[in-house]
C-alpha cells in the first residue's frame, strides 16, 4: 500500500522507498529557490511567493514521488490527499493580519489564495504536474491512518492510480506515496508512530534512516 515516504522540515529532509536507497540530509535555505529546486529535481514557478508550509510540503511530496519511482513507471493520474491539525491556520492568520494592519480596506490576493486547507498541497501538485484529485481529508480520530486508508481506497476505486497522502503543518510535512496494491514493507520505518505530529514524525523518520547501515 505505501510505496514510499518523503519528509521535510526546516532542518532535515529524507525519503525511503521500496527498491530505493534511502536518502536524508540537512534542509537547505528554503528562501533560496535554486537549492530547493535541486532537492525537488526541477524548476518551480512561483517558488518565491510560496509560504513555508507549501515549500516543505513540496519537498516532502517530491521526495516521496522520487522514491516511489512512479514517474519512471509512467504512472497515470496521481492525486493528493492532505490533512493536518492546523489546516491552513498559519496562512489564514497571515492574510487576515495583513488585511487588518492595512486598515481593513483591501485584502492581499497573493495571501488570500493560500487560505484553503488544500492550498499547500494544491500548489505543490501544480508544481509537480499532478492531475488526479486534490482534497483535504482530516479525520476525527487517528488522522494519519485515516488519511492513508482514504488514499488507498481512492486508488482502489480508480480515482487515481496513486495518491500522495500529505500530513503537514506550517513547518513540517510527511508524505506517503499510496497505491492500491500491497506495499513492500516501507511503512515499517514508521514503527507504529503513525499519529505523531508532522514535526516529530520527521525527526523519527530521519533517526530511523540514520540507523540504517
Amino acid at each position, binding site marked *: 500500500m505505501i510505496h514510499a515516504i518523503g519528509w521535510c522540515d526546516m532542518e532535515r529532509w529524507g525519503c525511503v522507498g521500496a527498491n530505493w536507497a534511502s536518502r536524508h540530509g540537512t534542509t537547505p535555505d528554503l528562501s533560496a529557490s535554486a537549492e530547493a529546486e535541486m532537492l525537488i529535481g526541477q524548476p518551480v514557478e512561483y517558488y518565491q511567493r510560496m509560504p513555508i508550509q507549501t515549500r516543505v510540503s513540496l519537498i516532502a511530496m517530491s521526495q516521496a514521488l522520487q522514491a516511489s519511482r512512479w514517474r519512471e513507471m509512467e504512472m497515470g493520474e496521481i492525486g493528493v490527499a492532505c490533512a493536518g491539525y492546523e489546516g491552513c491556520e498559519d496562512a489564514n492568520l497571515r492574510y487576515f493580519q495583513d*488585511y487588518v494592519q492595512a486598515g481593513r480596506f483591501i485584502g492581499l490576493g497573493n495571501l488570500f489564495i493560500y487560505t484553503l*486547507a488544500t492550498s499547500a498541497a494544491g*500548489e505543490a501538485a501544480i508544481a509537480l504536474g499532478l492531475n488526479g484529485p486534490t482534497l483535504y481529508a482530516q479525520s*476525527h480520530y487517528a488522522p494519519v491512518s485515516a488519511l492513508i486508508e482514504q488514499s488507498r481506497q*481512492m486508488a482502489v476505486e480508480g480515482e487515481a492510480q496513486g495518491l500522495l497522502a500529505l500530513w503537514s503543518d506550517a513547518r513540517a510535512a510527511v508524505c506517503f506515496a499510496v497505491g492500491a496494491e500491497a506495499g513492500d514493507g516501507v511503512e515499517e520505518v514508521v514503527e507504529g508512530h503513525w499519529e505523531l505530529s508532522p514535526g516529530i514524525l520527521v525527526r523519527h523518520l530521519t533517526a530511523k534512516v540514520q540507523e540504517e547501515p
Partner: protein
Amino acid sequence: MKIVIAESDVVTAYGWGMAPLWSGLLAGRTAIRPTKWFARRGFVSDQAAIIADLDASSDGSRVMAMLRRLLAPLVGRFDPLTPILLATTVGEIEYLQRAVLGNETQLLAAARPERLLEQVKIFLGLRGPGMVVSSACTSSVAAVALAASMIRRSQAERVLVVACDAISEFVYSGFSGLLSLSAQPARPFDVDRDGLSLGEAATWALVTDARASEAMGCSAEILGWGNTTDAVHITAPDCSAQGLSRAIEKACAMAKRSAGEVVFIAAHGTATSFSDAMEMKAFKDVFGRPRPTFSIKGGTGHTLGAAGLVQLLVAQRALATGIVPGTVGLTKPDPLALGWVSSKPAMAATNSVAISTNSGFGGVNTAMLLAGGARS
C-alpha cells in the same frame, strides 16, 4: 449496488428548505442583495446572498447558527455510529477574525474545521467516524463522492454529508482583493458578466445504499463521479478545459454511461469571465451538441464549500420534476454559451440522467452523474 441521495435539506438566502430555493430559481428571482455589512470597507461590491433570519449571537458563528436550525430535525434520528462528512472551505472563520481583531489568540483553535465537526457530531448525538472534507469550491461534491465510495465498499450503510459556508469579512475581503466580485448580482454565462457574488448556505444529504433507502422514499441515484486537478495555476482555470473534461469523462466512465445520455447540465457557473468560458469549452468538447445548462449562482450567490451539494440537490429536483431551471441573472448569453443556457426553464424527460460540475481554486474539478427518480 445503487447508491442514492435518499434525504436532504438546505438553507440558502432564498430561505429554509428546497421549496423557496426551487421556486426562486424557476421564477428567475435572485436572492442577492446589497448589504451594508462591509459599507465602511473599500470593497469592489456590496452584493451578497445573505440568509436574512439568522441569529448567530447565541451560536458564536453563522455556520453553527445555520446548522443548529437545519439539522434540528435529525437529532436522535440516526444510529449514533453513522459516519459523518463535513464539507467546508473556511468553517467558523469568525473565530479567527475575532482572534485577530481582539488580539484573543485563544480563539484560534475554535476556528479549526475539526472543532466544527465535533460540535455537529455532539449536536446530532453521533459517535462514529467523522471527517472534514475540503477541496475549495468542489468540497461538498467531493464529500458526497467519498460517502458513495464508503457505501460501495460496504464500510457503511448510510453516510451523512453536511456542507456549509457563511459570508464573512475574511472571505469577502479576499475575493474583493482578487477583483473577483461583481458590483451587481452575478450573471453567469452572460456576455456582460463581470464577476461572482458571494452567498451563504448550509445543506445536508443522507447518502445510502438504495436497498436501505426504500423505506424512506428513494430519490436521485449517484451513478458515478470524477475528480481531477488542472495542475496549471493556483487560481486561474485551465483555458484548455482539459481538467474539467477529464472529470466529466471519468464520471461517465464510472457510471458506464455515454456523454450522449446526459440530458442536462448543472454547471458551476460562477459568472467570472474565465471560469464560465472554461466550463463551456469542456461541455462542448465532451458533449458536442447543446443541452440545457444552468447555473444557480445568479440566485444563491457562490456558496463556496456548500455550492456543489446545493447544486446537486437542485439537479435532483430537476430530474424528479422534468423542469430544468433557467440561469438567474442571464440577459444576453455569451456567444460561447449560446444554445446551451437560457434565462427560462426548460423541460427534460423525468427519470433521465444529468451531470453536475464544479471547479475551484487550485484547479480542482468535480463532475457527478445523477439518475433521476421521482420521490415516492
